[in-house]
């Protein structure tokens, strides 16, 4: 894979990193009885996000998971992602459909394997996953300060900032997607 070049952004998905999420990125959060899912990043409602994740992840893989005490085969979405600011290295990334315990949440799994460093200043932080027209996936953080300073492209900046600033309970993460090809977008607010 050669050096990445300027590429058009096709679509993006984002979710706010709440203070309690930070440990997900450093492999310290599997100490809760909730199990391995504590290292996942959840998107809900699943039916709103399913289409955009389906478009972004090129691969499909069948994996066996424990559901209600039984082994079941589920299809997960797979892809490879580069981390913004860390060069061209491609890392595996998976998106899994809901579990029986959380029937309407899709999950980006095992983020702690990516070695991401969450910004600790500059306000609230969004994890942004985006796809470019050279068939690449990128992951980056958008800070509240950078959005307020309007450092992102106007279309992306307006969407992320307006979604971040919507009213929602303190423990609810801002999340949504913006598809620049189809024009579809979604921002989860307190109303769901």
């Amino acid at each position, binding site marked *: 894979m050669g*050096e*990445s*070049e*300027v*590429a*058009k*952004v096709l679509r*993006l998905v984002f979710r706010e990193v709440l203070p309690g999420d930070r440990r997900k990125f450093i492999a310290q959060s599997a*100490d809760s009885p909730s199990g391995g899912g504590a290292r996942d990043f959840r998107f809900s409602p699943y039916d709103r996000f399913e289409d955009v994740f389906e478009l972004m992840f090129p691969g499909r893989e069948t994996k066996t998971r424990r559901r209600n005490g039984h082994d079941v085969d589920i299809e997960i979405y797979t892809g490879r992602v580069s981390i*913004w*600011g860390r060069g061209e290295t491609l890392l595996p990334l998976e998106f899994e459909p809901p579990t029986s315990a959380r029937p309407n949440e899709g999950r980006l799994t095992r983020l702690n394997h990516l070695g991401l460093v969450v910004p600790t*200043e500059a306000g609230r932080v969004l994890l*942004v996953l*985006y796809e*470019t027209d050279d068939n690449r996936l*990128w992951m*980056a953080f958008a800070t509240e300060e*950078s959005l307020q*300073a*309007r*450092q*992102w*492209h*106007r*279309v*992306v*900046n307006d969407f992320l900032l307006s979604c971040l600033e919507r009213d929602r309970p303190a423990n609810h993460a801002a999340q949504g997607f913006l598809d*620049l090809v189809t024009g579809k977008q979604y921002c989860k607010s307190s109303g769901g």
Partner: protein
Amino acid sequence: MTNYSQECLQILELLKDRKNVLMMGPPASGKTRLMSEVADAFQNGFIAQSTPKSPQHIPDATIPIPAQAPSGAGTTPIPQLPSPDRTQRRVFKIVFNANSKPRDFLSGLVPEVRPDAASTTFRVAEGKLIQANKFALEPDSAALLIIDELNRGPAVQLFGDALVALEADKRLDENNQPLPTTWTFDVLNQHGVTEPMALSTHVYVLAAMNQADVSVEPLDVAFIRRWEPFRVKPNSEIARQLLGAAGEDASLPEIPTTPGEVVEAAIRAWIRVNNHIETGRGEEFQLGHGVFLTRNTAPPPTLEQALDFAIAWWNAIVAHVDEVFFGDVFGMAATLRADPDSAFYRLESVAFGQDQRQVLRRPVIIDRSNIYSLLRWIAG
């Protein structure tokens, strides 16, 4: 052309040449605003920027999907920009205070309380200077560290032996390789072991302080000489322009007819007060033009509103005079132009037991009816 102020460009140029700049000035003279402007220019100081029509991933930008294409995408850095060829640019900020510790600035151990652990553990904390330096040591990267209220914390202690390494000629070379003159200092690594570190030539430090503030610790000559000084002074023209003052050449009538005349009277009174403060206490104790900009940064639309603003401005100015000349009634009286014939401020001698004491009498009330006359009197 850029939209950055002349002061901002001067500071960038000093940073480029000397690496460390110490901004000094009276309170409310715009230091914090200027630091924010320098921070913006450091990150985005490119001209002929173009805005992509649709969102684009631009590899060399400072933001993944940036508002504007950076230098690598056909733009030019402003001439004063430090490390102009480096496209990964980041600003780090810290405010010193009496409780600042070396671990906040360099490195150190901090207790880590974990409810599930039997005992308290420790982890190594990386301070702002180390964070900024590590960023600048990365390829194609440059960092600006902003330190506000430098003398409100134990600055000499916080810098420790990094002070020598701070000097421009004690840094690493352009490619972050050691030179014979490179100076190292000790930091704790993540395993709690000290290891030497040298500062990148691409890490810049901009500090600000108000000399009138009482320092937590004295800043000695050895510390001060590591910095290129930049003095920020009160600027009456900024206040005049923003607030629509009548101008320094206008003659002020006995009764004001326009808001601009009231604003002008307030600015002239403030200038006169600052002149007295400079004589009586020193220029670092003056009050900056920010005193006029805390409530509004647009011209007052009516005469009444201008008079109300003027009352608030004057109260703030007098509060500053009280603070600066605390315990010095003669200094206060001279600054407020106390005069036996004045209807505003008078110095009276009153009996105090067997003694005579000087007391500054002030106007019983300051309102729309007398504020303009008071300001004209003070302005002389």
